């Protein structure tokens, strides 16, 4: 029996036994008799007119059951939904171009699906792809962001007549007035690129239409099973109750699995219904680089106006954002950039303008961090340059600008991705900075270690940066808690789960209310049959929104338990205590187990009071007014080999604040993973496109994910500033670790190089670092 309270304790994960012994079920583990396998014919061209597709030979191949092109879809062919309509920003331009299931007359990025083959095996399906004769007339390709806006640029979506996907200006105060009073203005151009989510498990779908009971079951690697069910029902003309979507264990989500609907997601269920057989499609790694959303380049021109003490008077930022070929996710990513740039700082005047452009590349939708890193990079870099120019210590300039606890809730007067005003709920930034500086040994490093190393010809540098992360946004999630006659508790919720530890953290929350062992709370999630309402796992919101719903439902069940027990034990509720799975009259050995109470709550005979509800069960929903604001400081010490430009991380410190910690071990795990992702984005990963929109490194041979030897041990500490916006006081943490790493590398490397170069771009690599320092040209092929 574990010790209460569970919330706050680093209990072992409930799901570990299943995951670590290989018993957990992933989509590709589901084997149904008679399953057919699908493979997609994808465009080799980034932009072209699709003149014809001759599928006759493919249809004739033995083992091929069906081949579909856009034409074969009939009425089912239509543009997908706009998943996230943009916030009502005054003067906003937004041009919608949502995905299509199969290209009809135009292909707009490499890898866009044009046909699907369904066969007895994936092998045969792939053989048949080679039988299809494709005629594409190549069109000029739009790759670069600035080029996309040039007057003579080819236009990707002819109906729109422009490559502008969106244009938005958000303002606070009067930047120009602030600038005119500034002591110093630093302005720079920045380029910040990112990459793929790189989930261990790619996407996959298995759809099974059962013609006898007219039910469709879809196993899908989605972060949003309920919206997928709702959308499929609508599209396929079925009742929601006829469609069950299961997102079993997922081998990582990181954002791209929140995108919906991918072409494969609308086609596979439809095909299963047409053929009356289960149909499976498992994305392979080669496809994934083209077919799954990723995140990419932004180009910023930004300036920071400060007074003589380094206090921020205002920030101006104008940037271009790469949307890729379609924009089904609205402007979430650039809005996040715009909002997160402000960081933990007091910024009285802000002018932020962005233009999102269509390019002939895979779509851009949120990937862990979701545009936040771009904004943090710009702000942290500007502060570094201002500090240097004013001769102020870089920790000091940050401290001078931090919002103080009495300034919360703090309204930044611009709109966030959830269409609500950007208001920080709570925060206390100074202690985190001081703690991080102390942990990394900031003073000693600068005064002793670094000079000594420099004397010995070594290049050692330190970075220390801060950031905030808007997390835990609405609209809502729900949970149902029921005590079963076995005394065990069933907890169902609608958010999907992709390895965050929800089977444990949600159980901890409920176990505390009901006085049961955490292992006796069985969490069901990611299955629309278990719970019918909800949105999904995104924006670091699981624990905040679904966790709070679990908490609320458990409180109601606790009340029911106490009321029933008070009757059974003939004692006042105040005299009862709930622990170890029983209700006991305090100071006596009179008790009744939760199991017995559950039986009593569901009588087979006799009468009950009018209005009584059976069972020890309750369903609750939680919808926060707005998001919670997590924050953190990362610090690291790096060493550069002065001869080879190889970089090694000597120390890595994280001080993080996500409000109340439900499970510190799981939180640390989230941070570790995030930092690893951030290290990848800063120094290893890059999607390299040529000027024809061809991705040159579409495999893990050349697209470099950081490995165990590249990710250092992290020293993690926490500050806990509870959120006032939910009963648990929690804030989200899923994306946090990944966000400040680019800014951190930049500062640390610059420091190691003693300011020999200014670092204005991400990602870097040893080769790029060498070229920057020596002024030598980098790879001419890496066009974008």
């Amino acid at each position, binding site marked *: 029996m574990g010790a209460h309270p569970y919330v706050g304790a680093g209990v072992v994960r409930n799901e570990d036994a299943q995951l670590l012994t290989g018993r957990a079920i992933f989509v590709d583990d589901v084997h149904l008799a008679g399953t057919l396998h699908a493979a997609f014919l994808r465009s080799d061209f980034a932009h072209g007119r699709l003149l014809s597709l001759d599928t006759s030979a493919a249809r004739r191949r033995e083992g091929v059951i069906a081949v579909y092109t856009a034409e074969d879809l009939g009425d089912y062919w239509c543009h997908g939904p706009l998943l996230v309509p943009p916030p009502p920003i005054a003067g906003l331009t937004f041009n919608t171009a949502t995905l299509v299931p199969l290209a009809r007359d135009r292909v707009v990025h490499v890898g866009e699906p044009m046909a699907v083959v369904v066969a007895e095996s994936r*092998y045969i399906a792939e053989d048949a792809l*080679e039988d299809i004769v494709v005629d594409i007339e190549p069109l000029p390709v739009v790759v670069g962001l600035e080029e996309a806006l040039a007057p003579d640029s080819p236009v990707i979506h002819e109906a729109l007549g422009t490559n502008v996907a969106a244009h938005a200006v958000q303002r606070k105060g009067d930047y120009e007035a602030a600038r005119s009073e500034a002591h110093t203005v630093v302005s720079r151009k920045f380029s910040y690129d990112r990459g793929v989510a790189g989930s261990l498990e790619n996407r996959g779908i298995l759809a099974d239409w059962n013609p006898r009971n007219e039910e469709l079951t879809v196993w899908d690697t989605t972060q949003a099973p309920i919206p997928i069910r709702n959308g499929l029902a609508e599209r396929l003309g079925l009742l929601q109750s006829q469609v069950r979507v299961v997102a079993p264990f997922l081998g990582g989500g990181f954002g791209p699995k929140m995108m919906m609907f991918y072409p494969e997601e609308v086609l596979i269920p439809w095909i299963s219904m047409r053929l009356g057989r289960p149909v499976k499609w498992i994305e392979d790694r080669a496809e994934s680089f083209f077919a799954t959303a990723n995140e990419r380049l932004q180009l910023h021109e930004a300036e920071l106006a400060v007074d003589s003490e380094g206090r921020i008077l205002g920030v101006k930022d104008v940037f271009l954002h790469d949307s890729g070929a379609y924009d089904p996710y609205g402007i979430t990513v650039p809005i996040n950039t715009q909002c997160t740039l402000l960081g933990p700082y007091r910024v009285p005047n802000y002018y932020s303008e962005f233009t999102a452009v269509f390019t002939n590349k895979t779509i851009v939708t949120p990937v862990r961090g979701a545009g936040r890193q771009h904004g943090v990079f710009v702000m942290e870099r500007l502060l570094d340059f201002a500090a240097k120019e004013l001769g102020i210590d870089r920790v000091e300039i940050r401290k001078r600008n931090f919002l103080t606890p009495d300034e919360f809730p703090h309204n930044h007067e611009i709109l966030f991705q959830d269409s609500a005003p950007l208001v920080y709920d709570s925060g206390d930034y100074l202690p985190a900075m001081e703690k991080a500086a102390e942990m990394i040994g900031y003073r000693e490093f600068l005064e002793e270690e670094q000079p000594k190393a420099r004397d010995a010809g070594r290049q050692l540098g330190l970075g220390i940066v801060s950031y905030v992360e808007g997390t835990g946004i609405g609209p809502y999630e729900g949970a149902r808690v029921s005590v079963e006659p076995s005394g065990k508790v069933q907890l169902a919720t609608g958010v999907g789960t992709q390895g965050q530890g929800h089977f444990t953290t949600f159980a901890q929350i409920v176990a505390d209310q009901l006085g049961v062992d955490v292992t006796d709370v069985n969490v069901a999630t990611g299955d629309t049959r278990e719970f019918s309402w909800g949105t999904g796992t995104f924006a670091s919101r699981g624990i905040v929104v679904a966790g709070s719903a679990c908490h609320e439902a458990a409180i109601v069940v606790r009340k029911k338990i106490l009321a029933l027990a008070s009757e059974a034990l003939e004692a006042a509720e105040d005299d009862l205590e709930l622990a170890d799975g029983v209700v006991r009259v305090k100071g006596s050995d009179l008790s009744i187990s939760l199991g017995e109470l559950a039986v009593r709550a569901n009588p087979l005979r006799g009468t009950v009071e009018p209005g009584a509800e059976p069972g020890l069960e309750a369903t609750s929903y939680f919808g926060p007014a707005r998001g919670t604001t997590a924050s953190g400081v990362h610090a690291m010490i790096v060493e550069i080999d002065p001869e080879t430009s190889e970089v090694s991380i000597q120390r890595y410190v994280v001080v993080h604040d996500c409000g109340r910690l439900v499970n510190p071990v799981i939180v640390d795990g989230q941070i570790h993973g995030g930092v690893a992702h951030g290290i990848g984005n800063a120094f290893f990963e890059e999607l390299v496109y040529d000027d024809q929109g061809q991705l*040159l490194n579409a495999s893990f041979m050349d697209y470099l994910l950081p490995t165990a030897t590249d990710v250092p041990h992290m020293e993690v500490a926490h500050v806990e500033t509870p959120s006032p916006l939910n009963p648990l006081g929690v804030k989200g943490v899923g994306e946090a670790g990944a966000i400040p790493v680019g800014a951190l590398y930049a500062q640390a490397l610059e420091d190691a190089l003693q300011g020999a170069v200014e670092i204005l771009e991400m990602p870097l690599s040893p080769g790029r670092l060498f*070229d920057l320092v*020596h002024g030598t*040209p980098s*790879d001419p092929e890496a066009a974008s």
Partner: protein
Amino acid sequence: MKPAPFEYRRPDTVEEVLHLLAEYGDEAKLLAGGQSLIPTMNFRLAQPAVLIDLNAVKGLDSVDEADDGGLRLGAMVRQAAAERSALVAEKVPLLAETLPFVAHAQIRNRGTIGGNLAHADPRSELPAVMLALGASVRVRGPDGERSIGAGDFFTGFFGTALEEGELLTEVVLPPAVEGGGQAFLEVSRRLGDYAMVGVAASVVCDPAGRCHRASIALLSVGSRPMLAEQASACLVGERPSSAAVLAAGHAAGNKDIDPQADMHASVAYRRHLATVLVRRALTAAFERAGCVMGEGAS
């Protein structure tokens, strides 16, 4: 990522392999560890009609001392087996030192010495080791057996002197000589990746402490592994010194090689890495040769 259909054969003698090669000609591919071949088949870049699996063939996986005191490695010796072999460590320390740089442990468990050489990736470590040591391979084909020196074996980008119908059976490494020293160094993006530049250096000093021979093989700097001749020229006949190895480094980086840029390294960076690595590798090799390095010019 599924391969195109192919026929699969699993012979158990070299004779049968040769017979199948003769029968199917360039329709056939030999399968060793599969660590390079299978990915290319899965990408459908290679679509052999017949796959001749060497894994059941007897007599291709032994590690033996050669009559001259050198080492003979069967083509099917797994890279991991060679890495762990006491005989390899004793007879050819450069090979033992280099093997951990070849891919990852899991890949070395399957990948073979012969497959690695036959694949002839210009970024591979083992071909450079072969060149630096003056090793050779034995091959068998329709016309019997022949031996090919490393310098002649690697003919170009993924190209070897193997002719149609031929099988690489053995690698022959010469014995260590008195006054010899070797070293291997590379810079790669991550541990286990193909290097951006790598160097295998083998030097021999005479009893008077002069450099008698210096073979400096570079990888990832061109279409095939190459010997840096001008770098060697800076050393042979000279007493090794830090100035001489520095000069050799510059010769290698600026004169011997004509590297290409790729997404991981520019031309300038590759030249620079070659300069640094050649200097460092030579310094280590001379030290291991027991050669006292002078400060200035010799």
